[in-house]
């Protein structure tokens, strides 16, 4: 066994494969955060007055707030005045089509395996690529338009569909929600906007790829997905950043609105730079993601594979407001070296006959700490609500930690809630069994870890399942086949 541990530990020190830097001229605002900077960001994006007003309100609220300290995380003090809140690759004008996009940018996304160009056609996934603070291109615009689907950068949406943005922005995550949501609301620079009209099933999967490139910047994107009654969409999100010694901040907000009988499936493969084996550098990932099943029979499903970031603070949640609405959360969180993750979900049952399911798999290696933190709340009028939660943690090595903090609150006597959690290392008996069948130790570990995560992987769309598996291979090569 000790040999295996050694092997695994050697392998988890694999290099971060998305760690390159693209040398591209960037348009950066000065570092610091004040009203002037916010006005500057708003002006650069040519935003209407109400948008700037909203940002400033958020900023003023943020100034009254304190950094949250309840998570099981050691977060070094962040100097919010040292961050550049806006950085964009220099382009003369916004490109009209992908052909006009700087080839260097396209090359970056190509290198990351994100098909923006011809390959997109083969993959059949519409992609919005966000480079530092702005969206650089969205594929398949025409096909989506035909279906009535709006998929564009957030800045474009503010220009082209202000009424939708104004109606829904902050309706799921108000700027008063938490410290990082308030910060994001004040300075967010871009992100993706999705609108699926009534009764429409989005003809292809939508995807956003986030890339932090510039130094000393933070990325603050905002995603808003609206599914009108009977609409359906599957949305994928991926992220990477170059390897750097200093830490960079990523504070995103994602809002989902599902109306009557609408379905939204949101999948994330998060692979921000995690820092080196000594814990130097890496992204601080403080993200607020929340879905609102606003009307009856709505359904929201979150799937996440979290392998990156030095610090992850993220709780994709569902507000089950409509009767018979359903929320799901599937998560694999892997931490190694000095990574810290405090992640989980909240399922707030408000409507009758609402159901939720939580499957969380945590893998800790190296000197990392991996925490599941979840809340299941059954409100008084949520008759017959049902929740099932399963949280499993796998420990690899003697210096890591795995923690589980589920909050379960019930105020309705017809609700049923089940929660299970286990923590263990890879069992010697399991290893022995596999080896007695002729597998070497490495393959045996691979098989066991793969099996451990399978329930979550099978929820991912095909393209992402492949990427997720590959990512675990990088992080735990030899542990995943």
């Amino acid at each position, binding site marked *: 066994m000790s040999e295996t541990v050694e092997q695994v530990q050697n392998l988890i020190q694999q290099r971060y494969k998305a760690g390159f830097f693209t040398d591209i001229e960037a348009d950066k605002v000065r570092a610091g955060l004040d009203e002037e900077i916010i006005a500057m960001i708003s002006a650069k994006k040519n935003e209407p007055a109400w948008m700037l007003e909203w940002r400033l309100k958020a900023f003023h609220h943020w100034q009254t707030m304190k950094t949250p300290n*309840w998570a*099981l995380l050691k977060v070094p003090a962040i100097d919010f005045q040292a961050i550049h809140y806006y950085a964009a690759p220099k382009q003369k004008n916004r490109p009209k089509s992908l052909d006009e996009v700087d080839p260097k940018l396209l090359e970056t996304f190509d290198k990351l395996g994100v098909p923006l160009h011809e390959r997109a056609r083969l993959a059949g996934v519409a992609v919005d690529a966000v480079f530092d603070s702005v969206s650089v291109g969205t594929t398949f615009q025409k096909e989506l338009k035909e279906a009535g689907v709006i998929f564009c950068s957030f800045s474009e949406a503010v220009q082209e569909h202000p009424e939708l943005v104004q109606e829904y922005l902050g309706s799921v995550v108000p700027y008063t929600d938490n410290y990082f949501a308030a910060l994001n609301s004040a300075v967010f620079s871009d992100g993706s906007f999705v609108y699926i009209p009534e009764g429409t099933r989005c003809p292809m999967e939508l995807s956003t790829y986030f890339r932090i490139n510039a130094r000393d910047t933070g990325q603050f994107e905002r995603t808003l997905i609206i599914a009108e009654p009977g609409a359906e969409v599957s949305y994928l999100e991926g992220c990477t950043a170059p390897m750097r010694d200093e830490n960079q901040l990523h504070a995103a907000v994602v809002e989902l609105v599902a109306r009557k009988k609408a379905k939204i499936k949101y999948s994330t493969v998060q692979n921000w730079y995690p820092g080196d084996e000594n814990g130097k550098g890496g992204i601080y990932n403080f993200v607020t993601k929340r879905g609102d099943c606003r009307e009856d029979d709505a359904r929201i499903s979150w799937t996440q594979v979290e392998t990156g970031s030095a610090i992850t603070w993220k709780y994709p949640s569902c507000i089950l407001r409509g009767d018979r609405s359903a929320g799901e959360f599937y998560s694999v969180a892997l931490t190694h070296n000095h990574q810290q993750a405090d992640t989980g979900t909240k399922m707030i049952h408000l409507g009758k006959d609402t159901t939720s399911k939580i499957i969380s798999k945590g893998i800790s290696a190296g000197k990392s700490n991996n925490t599941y933190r979840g809340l299941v709340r*059954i409100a*008084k009028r949520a008759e017959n609500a049902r929740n099932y939660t399963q949280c499993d*943690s796998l*420990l*690899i*090595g*003697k*210096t*890591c*930690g*795995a*923690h*589980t*903090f*589920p*909050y*379960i*609150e*019930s*105020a*309705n*006597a*017809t*609700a*049923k*809630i*089940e*929660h*299970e*959690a*286990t*923590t*263990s*290392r890879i069992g010697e008996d399991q290893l022995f069994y596999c080896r007695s069948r002729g597998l070497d130790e490495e393959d045996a570990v691979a098989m066991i870890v793969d099996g451990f995560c399978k329930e979550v992987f099978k929820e991912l769309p095909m393209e992402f399942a492949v990427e997720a598996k590959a990512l675990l291979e990088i992080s735990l090569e030899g542990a995943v086949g």
Partner: protein
Amino acid sequence: MSALIDQLAPESGLPDDSHAEVRRRAQARLMSQGFPDPKTEAWKYTSLRVLEKREFQGIGQQAVPRCALPFAADVLAFDNGQYNPDASTLPDGVRLEPLDAQSLETLDYAGREDAFAWLNLARFEQAWKLSIDAPLARPLVLAFATSDDFSGAVHPRLHIELAANASATLVEWQHGQGEGLVNLVEQIHLNPNARLHHLVQRQHGELAWVQRTDVSIERDADYRFHALDGGGRLVRQDLRLDLLQAGAHGEIDGVALLDSRQHVDYHTAINHQVGHTTSRESFRMMADGTGVGVFNGRIYIARGADDSHSDLNTGNLLLSDSARINTKPELEIYAEDVTASHGATIGQLEDSALFYLRTRGIPTQEAMALLKFGFAAEPLENIENDTLRDWLMVLLNEHLGSF
């Protein structure tokens, strides 16, 4: 919250005795931290409003109820928080002495969650050390009772030490009347190879009861806790087990039954400080009327505490739409070669089980009582002593009759 400070811990009035220095330090800590508020994680679901509204006065003149137990036992009576030697018998092998100042000097209660432990340290009226030096033949009962006209705030403190190889069954019989506050702190230490079976049978009316029980367990010692908790207006029980040396074993089993105007909050922590230690916990809560049940069960396994094993499960029955259950099982694991698990459920009586019993000719009310009993009795079933188990089962049955 400052009203509570003024009521319970006024700047003046600290007893000037041989513990004065310890008291002064504890008071300073309490003042700097304050009492918990709704933002204090460990008191998130338990409000102190009930206490704020109370005016604490005298400890009362009336007689306290005496325990009548269906088994032979030695009783130590604590009436309105004070030891009453006239109503007590000390068996051989047991000593009860005032606690020396030294034992209090190294105590430390971290954080705001422990405000009541600091309050106790600053204000205790009496502090006793109970030493159990040899195996005891029959149960030792600690009878805590308050009288009908009790409206004071008392802070009893009891340190219990079991010598190496000693063994005992300790029954805490707690029946509080009146509208005061009892803020009890117990420190229990088990020396190597000692065995302690600790039963708590609690039934308070309007009384507010805050209790901290810290248990430290040395090599091959064995601690078992059983509670049959009938609740009270405000009951808060902190129970912490520290498994300090290899072979230490701890178990917690309990059931709390809540009805209207009752609030019961159990915060348990099992800390595996070293490897080769084992523990398990099973806790059930049943809430009817406007009862509120809170359960927070933590399992902590320290770095390097390999070969530690722990399992916790908590089941909850919510019987009324005005009742509430908040439960939080926690795992905090820093060692690799361990197994730790927890499970939690909240639900109601199964319709199918009820239907089954009714098809067998059992009337609905009786069938429901049977199912409730089956649910609530489970944590008490593993009590090894038949007499004690039967005693609690009878009490449970009586209690459920009133549900």
